[in-house]
């Protein structure tokens, strides 16, 4: 299994415990522009209490701006933000019951680790004993006991980011906002920290709103994922929903690998891909209607030429550890195929796809719904 598939499997195995009723944060038709650039376009979203919600999208999709609006560092041009039912759109950042972990290292470098963590408590005039107790507990939570007297410049990137998390959670916010906090870390550390964050969330029982452009990170950690592009929501759903049932070409293309086709819906349960009739399970897309279709590489089955729906030839094979990645040329389309069975280069093959694994999507109605690198 690739690390990505591993992430998917892990995401599927997270037990969900979402109270379905309570909306802790509600964004109502929020718009924000910088100059001529519309960063958020009539954006509405609610976040449930205790949820791990991830805002996922390419850079420039508006996710960081959204987080800054929640933190109080940007004011929306239009729309309101409700927190616990109260309008906080114009509330100063220091008055909000949420804390942010920024992408960059933002530790106060003239203060020790303990002073950094205690900053919020000192502002609130907590007693010395309480500060000590909470600081120690926060250090313990992030696994850095004994670091209290260190100075920030003696910490590694991962340690600094954990202290930043400790500095935020020590204030017991109702919501923790995380702006790509792991992006500066190397792969191994990033994966460790992903599990740490999930554990932290379980222990603290608070809402996490997490911003990332890394789909694997999103699939691993989230209860819900909000896929964003060009300031609009493309899809909201659980990690499996997003992966298995992408609603448009953008989501399909952004999450995981996929073969995306310009196709024609002949009628219910029949779609024409590359001029060949494929059986599918989708209905309600009309008759002879242009649609987009995505087939995941692991759902493409290679059989002997006469048994396949269409015929092709294997162009290249790359060994990826758990599986082989093959490029199959069929009807002038380069199919990306993942399989544990290797088919040598140059072999004629037939392509077979289970009807259940053909995902039909409406054609994009706006440019932001299109695949970023549509073939």
């Amino acid at each position, binding site marked *: 299994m690739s690390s990505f598939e591993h992430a998917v499997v892990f995401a599927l195995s997270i037990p969900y415990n979402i109270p379905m009723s309570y909306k802790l944060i509600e964004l109502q038709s929020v718009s924000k522009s910088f100059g001529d650039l519309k960063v958020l376009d009539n954006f509405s979203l609610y976040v449930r209490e205790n949820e791990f919600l991830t805002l996922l999208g390419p850079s420039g999709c508006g996710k960081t701006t959204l987080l800054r609006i929640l*933190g109080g560092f940007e004011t929306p041009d239009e729309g309101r933000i409700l927190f616990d039912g109260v309008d906080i759109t114009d509330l*100063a*950042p*220091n008055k909000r019951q949420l*804390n942010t972990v920024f992408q960059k290292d*933002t530790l*106060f470098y*003239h203060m020790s680790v303990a002073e950094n963590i205690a900053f919020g408590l000192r502002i609130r005039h907590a007693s010395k004993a309480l500060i000590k107790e909470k600081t120690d507990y926060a250090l313990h939570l992030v696994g850095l006991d004994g670091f209290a007297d260190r100075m920030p410049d003696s910490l590694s990137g991962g340690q600094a980011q954990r202290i*930043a998390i400790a500095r935020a959670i020590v204030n017991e916010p109702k919501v923790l906002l995380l702006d790509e906090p792991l992006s500066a870390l190397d792969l191994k550390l990033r994966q460790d920290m992903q599990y740490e964050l999930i554990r932290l969330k379980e222990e603290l029982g608070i809402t996490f709103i997490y911003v990332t452009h890394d789909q694997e990170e999103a699939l691993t950690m989230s209860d819900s994922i909000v896929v964003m592009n060009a300031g609009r929501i493309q899809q909201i759903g659980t990690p499996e929903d997003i992966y298995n049932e992408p609603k448009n070409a953008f989501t399909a293309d952004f999450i995981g690998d996929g073969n995306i086709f310009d196709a024609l819906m002949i009628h219910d349960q029949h779609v024409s891909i590359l001029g060949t009739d494929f059986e599918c399970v989708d209905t309600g897309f009309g008759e002879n209607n242009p649609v987009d279709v995505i087939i995941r590489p692991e759902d493409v089955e290679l059989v002997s030429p006469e048994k396949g729906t269409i015929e092709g030839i294997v162009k290249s094979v790359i060994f990826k550890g758990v599986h082989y990645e093959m490029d199959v040329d069929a009807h002038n389309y380069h199919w990306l195929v993942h399989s544990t069975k290797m088919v040598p280069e140059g072999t004629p093959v037939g392509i077979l796809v289970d009807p259940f694994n053909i995902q039909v999507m409406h054609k994009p109605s706006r440019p932001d719904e299109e695949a970023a690198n549509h073939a």
Partner: protein
Amino acid sequence: MRRRWLAAPFLLWSAAFIIIPIFMIIWFALTDQSGSFTWSNILEMGLADNIKALALALLLSIAATLICLVIAYPIAMILAGKKNGRNTMIAMLFILPMWMNFLLRTMAWQTLLEKNGVINTILRVLHLPAVTIINTPGAVILGMVYNFLPFMILPLYTVLSKIDREITYSARDLGAGPFQTFVKITLPLSKPGMISGITMVFVPALTTFVITDLLGGGKVQLIGNTIEQEFIQGSSWHVGSGLSLILMIFVFISMVLVAKYDPQSTGTAIGGRP
């Protein structure tokens, strides 16, 4: 290592224009006209007039430094807060006067402040009472502040623009108001800039004689003027050197004092400490 000889011109320069002159000052300071050893030049500082000149110099230069700090800090903050491009214009407004000669700038103030100068002429036209600024300690402080302000702004601007906006955001995020954020985060983080600025304003202000000459009109006598007179008006190079030596010690002491308040001392104040 093999290219060490490339440093030779610099070493030669340092020897000729820094090290040898300092030893000459020490030699002059510790000898009399006939060349024999004496403490009398140093002890000249003990004369009432000289003590008064030194005390006034300290007072005026400290005042000028503090005024510079108070004016420069908000300017540096505004400059550092502006997006690139827009601030070049504002920065130019402060740098532009520096392209003009220091003496000319000071003489311009003389013309402005004179009894029948520009300011008083305008006041008279407006039927307002004339002001006497020229030839007062106030005029000298004004001259110091005007001439040395850029040297306070620039190091402050440099250090403030290096403080990430996210750091102040973090403080706000953790519950600090704008004022608390300034006192607990921005101010302490800008300390190295303040120390550089204080050094770069205080030292030239303490030793100046040109500003006093032009704006003090001989009525304000600072230690710099006393030393200048010893050298130029031919009184005695020996006494001038003795007083210079004492002044250097004062500068050194003040720098050590300033550096003491710099927790992560980078040696900016007393120069080039490793």
